[in-house]
Every structure is written in structure tokens, then in C-alpha cells.
């Protein structure tokens, strides 16, 4: 069980001083490790605080810039993905897509809810490790099909009926790591789709079986184009670690779209040590990625989708202002369809957790019916209601993004620019490459 901040209030008395080094979650984790002798696995993204979008502010219009009218004036939100090589690029209505999350990690009704919500808002969903299900194909107008190292359920028929293909190199939660799906979630259906025995703890590969390095990747992408008659946009997804080089190499390999996932990005199940200690924050990853695109003359030609800890329209607007063409969301979409719902408090407590803290998603006992393959639990999630909630949430994100864009005088959300931003902390100023608020200072940059 994971050490959870704030759930353990026992033991405090006047005069006792808690150690900053050995705080309660740390002590809890040492004791757990001493008892169980194996690393902790959980879902979600990094819980530690890292410099993030909250450390940035928009300047808004002033004497030298004029704003657009809040509700009335046009502020476009659509985006075309895959304009570089694909015969059939994707045209989505909003700059927020649903990230790849596997059937296996998620229940079939959860995948359906994501499809319904995304489709209602004119955006795309993405398959995940484990292949494509009927539920998600039939409920997603625009579906991106992932080609992952494990190749679970990889099927050329699904490749052809997808709207785009995403070659997954890595994820922000665990750049350099493979996937995990614990035996409790390897039901008959999941096992059959992945060609594995029922009930085993499955580890998906961290390396692709048939290519290594950027020269091979280029040939791999060419093969995918040939199989699909050059119709589908090809995305390359990387976990944020060396974004300048990875983005440049993805472009060199022929990607139409690069997906860049920062360290706060969610995962269905990974080692805690991996989630918290590998990769760089989303905020820090965007500027080098955009720099690589600009230097190659490919900014806005190869679209950049950013993910990892996106929660609000403010986050969306800031990612776009730093140069992304769109963002992608995972955990936030799951919360919108019902994850960690406070009405289930008593049930979370029964499994040793609490609403708002539940992250043992790998155990397959999710009372909300999202992270489970148990049919009874899964049946609790109403995909229509979940879909409506997701659509509402996405609508809100878009309104917030437009509000901020209009305040900065932009008639298209992608027209937001670094110029519109300042940072609240020196760290964020250095990472985002925007000035510290009230100064002209961008740490690490000479401006004269």
C-alpha cells in the first residue's frame, strides 16, 4: 500500500517535531518495504511538487495590446494534425485530445465513456497497450491507434481502421520503462487480446522488438505508411527526458506529429520510484521541444501535442503559449468520468484508501469501475453519463482557454505566445524561458 500524504494523522502531539527528511510518508514507505520486500507499484503521475504551469501567469492586454470581447468575438480552437505527409490529416475541433490509455488498465465502459465524451466535443481518443476494442472504435469518431513495444493486440486491420497511428517510444511517467498489468486485471478477455495466460503479472516490453534508434524508426514509419497507403498521420510519442534531441530525431524519422509527455503524466501502474524520479517536468520539456522544431523549420508543420499534468484551461493555454499545437489529457479525463468520486468514500476506505487518494489502480478493485476488469465493478460505470461529464469538462477547458486567449488579444488559441507569459519563480522562468514577473530576466539568457 502506498504511503499517502495526509491520511495518517495519528500520533501528533504537542512538542513532537516531525522530520522534514523522515516525514510520515517516508517512514510509512520504509516500514512497508521492510515488511514486503518489493518496490511499490501504483497508478497516476508524480505526486511531488515540480515547477509547473501554476508558476506561470498571463499578462493580459494593456495599453500596447488590445483584448477580444470575452464571449462574443471569434477565437478559434480547432487544429489539424498530420499536415506534413499524411493524405488524411485529422481535423479536430478543440486543442485537447484524450491520451492513450489501455483497455486492460481501464474497463470497457471507461474506454467507451472516453470515446463518447471526446466525440461529443469533436476531438480524438487513443488506444493503448493491449489493442483496440470495439467499444472504443465504435464510440470514437477519431481514434488514434498506438503501436507500442509490447505489440499486444497489434493488428493490421485495426491499423487500417484507425484515423492515425501513434508510435510510442516512451511515457512521461516512466521514460525508459515498460508497462505493467497485474494478474488481477488479466481477465479472459484481456488475456485473449494480449495472447497471454489469464492471471499472470504481465510486463510489457520497454523496447520495440523490430527497431532500435532513429535510423530504424524512420524505416519503421515508412513501413506503417506503406501498409496504410500513406493515408494516416503518424505520431511519435516520447516521454520527456531529452526533448530537444528526441523531438529533432522524431522529425528526422518522418513523424507528422510529436507527442511529448512530461513527468507528471499518469500511468496505469509503475514503480513509485520510476514515477517520481525519472524524466523532466512538462513545463521544462516544452521550450526545448519547440526550439528543436523551430530550428528545423518545422514548428506548426509537425504538430506538437503536450501532456502530463494538464488540469485546467489555464494549463492548456500556457502549453499552447509555449508553442504546443494541442494538449492531451489522461488522469483529468478519468476524474471527469468518475475516478476518485467522493460519493464512494466508504468503499475506498474498505480497500484501505480514500476518495481523492486512491491510486492502487493495478489491483483491479476500483469501486468506480474504471481501473478494473471485474465485470460487476465495471458495470457500475455508466458510459453515457461518464461521456457527458467528460464532454462538460472538455467544454470548460476550452472556454477557459478561449477566455485567456481573448484576454491576450488572440483570435485563435494557438496564437498565444511566450510573450504573453511571465513566471512566478526563478526556476519556472528558467525552464519556461519567459521572464520572471516584473523583470526582464530570463535566467540563462542574455537579452542584450
Amino acid at each position: 500500500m502506498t504511503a499517502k500524504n495526509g491520511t495518517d494523522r495519528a500520533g501528533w502531539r504537542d512538542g513532537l517535531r516531525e522530520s522534514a527528511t523522515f516525514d510520515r510518508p517516508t517512514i510509512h514507505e520504509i516500514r512497508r518495504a521492510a515488511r514486503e520486500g518489493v518496490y511499490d507499484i501504483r497508478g497516476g503521475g508524480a505526486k511531488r511538487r515540480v515547477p509547473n504551469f501554476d508558476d506561470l501567469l498571463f499578462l493580459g492586454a494593456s495599453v500596447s495590446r488590445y483584448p477580444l470581447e470575452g464571449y462574443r468575438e471569434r477565437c478559434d480552437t480547432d487544429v489539424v494534425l498530420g499536415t506534413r505527409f499524411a493524405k488524411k490529416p485529422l481535423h479536430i475541433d478543440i486543442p485537447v485530445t484524450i491520451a492513450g490509455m489501455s483497455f486492460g488498465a481501464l474497463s470497457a465502459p471507461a474506454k467507451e465513456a472516453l470515446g463518447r465524451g471526446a466525440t461529443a466535443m469533436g476531438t480524438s481518443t487513443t488506444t493503448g497497450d493491449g489493442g483496440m476494442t470495439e467499444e472504443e472504435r465504435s464510440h470514437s469518431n477519431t481514434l488514434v491507434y498506438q503501436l507500442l513495444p509490447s505489440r499486444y493486440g497489434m493488428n493490421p486491420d485495426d491499423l487500417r481502421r484507425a484515423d492515425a497511428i501513434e508510435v510510442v517510444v516512451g511515457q512521461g511517467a516512466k521514460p525508459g520503462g515498460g508497462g505493467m498489468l497485474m494478474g488481477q486485471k488479466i481477465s479472459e478477455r484481456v488475456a485473449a487480446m494480449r495472447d497471454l495466460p489469464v492471471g499472470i503479472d504481465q510486463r510489457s516490453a520497454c523496447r520495440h522488438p523490430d527497431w532500435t534508434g532513429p535510423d530504424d524508426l524512420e524505416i519503421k514509419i515508412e513501413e506503417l505508411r506503406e501498409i496504410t497507403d500513406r493515408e494516416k498521420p503518424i505520431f511519435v510519442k516520447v516521454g520527456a527526458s531529452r526533448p530537444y534531441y528526441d523531438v529533432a530525431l522524431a522529425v528526422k524519422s518522418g513523424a507528422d506529429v510529436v507527442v511529448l509527455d512530461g513527468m507528471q503524466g499518469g500511468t496505469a501502474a509503475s514503480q513509485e520510484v520510476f514515477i517520481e524520479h525519472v524524466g523532466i517536468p512538462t513545463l521544462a520539456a516544452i521550450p526545448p521541444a519547440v526550439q528543436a522544431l523551430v530550428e528545423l523549420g518545422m514548428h506548426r508543420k509537425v504538430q506538437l501535442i503536450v501532456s502530463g499534468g494538464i488540469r485546467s484551461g489555464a494549463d492548456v493555454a500556457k502549453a499552447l503559449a509555449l508553442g504546443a499545437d494541442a494538449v492531451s489529457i489522461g488522469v483529468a479525463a478519468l476524474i471527469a468520468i468518475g475516478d476518485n468520486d467522493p460519493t464512494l468514500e466508504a468503499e475506498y476506505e474498505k480497500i484501505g484508501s480514500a476518495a481523492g487518494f486512491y491510486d492502487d489502480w493495478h489491483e483491479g478493485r476500483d469501486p468506480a469501475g474504471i481501473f478494473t476488469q471485474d465485470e460487476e465493478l465495471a458495470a457500475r460505470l455508466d458510459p453515457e453519463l461518464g461521456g457527458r461529464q467528460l464532454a462538460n469538462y472538455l467544454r470548460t477547458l476550452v472556454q477557459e482557454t478561449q477566455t485567456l486567449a481573448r484576454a491576450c488579444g488572440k483570435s485563435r488559441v494557438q496564437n498565444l505566445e511566450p510573450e504573453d507569459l511571465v513566471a512566478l519563480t526563478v526556476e519556472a522562468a528558467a525552464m519556461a524561458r519567459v521572464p520572471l514577473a516584473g523583470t526582464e530576466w530570463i535566467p540563462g539568457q542574455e537579452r542584450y
Partner: protein
Amino acid sequence: MSVELAALRTVDLADSGVSSLNGELHAAPAGRWEVSNPAGRHAIAVGLTVPHEVVIEGHVGYYCAGMNQEAAVSVRGNCGVGVAENMMSGTVRIEGDASQAAGASAHGGLIAIDGNAAARCGISLKGGDVVVRGSVGHATGFMAQSGRIVVCGDAGEALGDSIYEARIYVRGDIGGLGADCVAKELREEHRIELGELLEQAGLGDADPREFRRYGSARRLYNFDVDDAV
């Protein structure tokens, strides 16, 4: 079908590009094709969906016959990385040697290699069969989930590393076993399936009794304190 199969289409890759060949193969009903001057080009005859018979006269690059369904593709030469990767059904025959990752993640069908295959042959195999007349390189059958790999010669190091339910048969020596891969008894049922596989691959003269069987010890199937280190 037999009427359509009668006509032979010849395509010279020195004149037409790989894309135009693949486009024709995707659009045409099942037929017989002869492809000349492949000159090591990549992604030749990929994504086929009908029982074409395709003969490629020469060496091919990466991913020849990738994701094949139904078709019978033969290469009169050597092939690059990932031949018949993720094949679903059909047959792919290589008359020469195959580079790395031959038959990677193949879900079905038969890949018959008359020469040798390099490292990671049958990696991530998911139900397909790979039969190699010669020897194979290291990490053959890495994480192979199901399907069968037959090696008439020798196998390199780390054979069957992290293997799941796939079965590996090797006639010659092995350079070493990978994690959780063990030698297993060759029972009658295995001799029968091996005999059938060898027959299908055109190696009916090989004696199944000379092979040894390797597979998963299934010790890594569930997380355990001792695996984590």
C-alpha cells in the same frame, strides 16, 4: 480464384517504386506476382490482405512482408531487419539469410528461413511459427508469448529470455538460456507438431527426435520478492 491466380504480374522495382507496388498489391484481387530488382529496398509487399503469391527476385531491406495476412511471399535472396514482422497469417519464405528480429511479434502464419537468422529471431512472438534451417543469433524468442520457433542449427546466447508460452525447438547447440527459459522434455505431442512444422517448411527430412525443446519455467509469471532484484 484459380483463374485469377493464373495470370502472372511482373513488377520491376528499378522502374516503379515500392509504394506503387504495395498500392497495386493492396488493390488487386489475389494473384501471382514476380518482383525484380528489389535492391534491398524497405517495406516491400507489406500489409497484404489477400492470398497473393509474390516472388521477389533478390535481396530485400527491412520489414519485407510486414503484417502479412493470407499472402505467400518468397524472397530469392537475403532480407533485412524484421521480415514478416507482426504477420497474421500466410507464409513467408526466405531463401537466403534473415537479419535481426525475423518474424517479430508474428501472430500467425509461417516464416521459413532457408539460411540463418540473426539476433532476436521470433522476438515477442504471438502465435506465429518461425522455422530456420540454419542457426539463429542471440535473444531468439525474447519475450515470445505463443507460437513456435524451430532452429535446425545452433542458437546464440540468451535463448528464450523472459519467454511466456511459446515453444522453441533447437537441434544444435545453444549459447545459453535467457531468464526463466529452461530445457523441457520432448514428448510425443511435441515430436508430432515439430514433424508437421518441418514438413510445412520444406524440411521434412529432418528428424524431430534430434531436437530439444525449450520453454518457460513460469517462475516470473507473478511478482515475487526475489524477481525484483
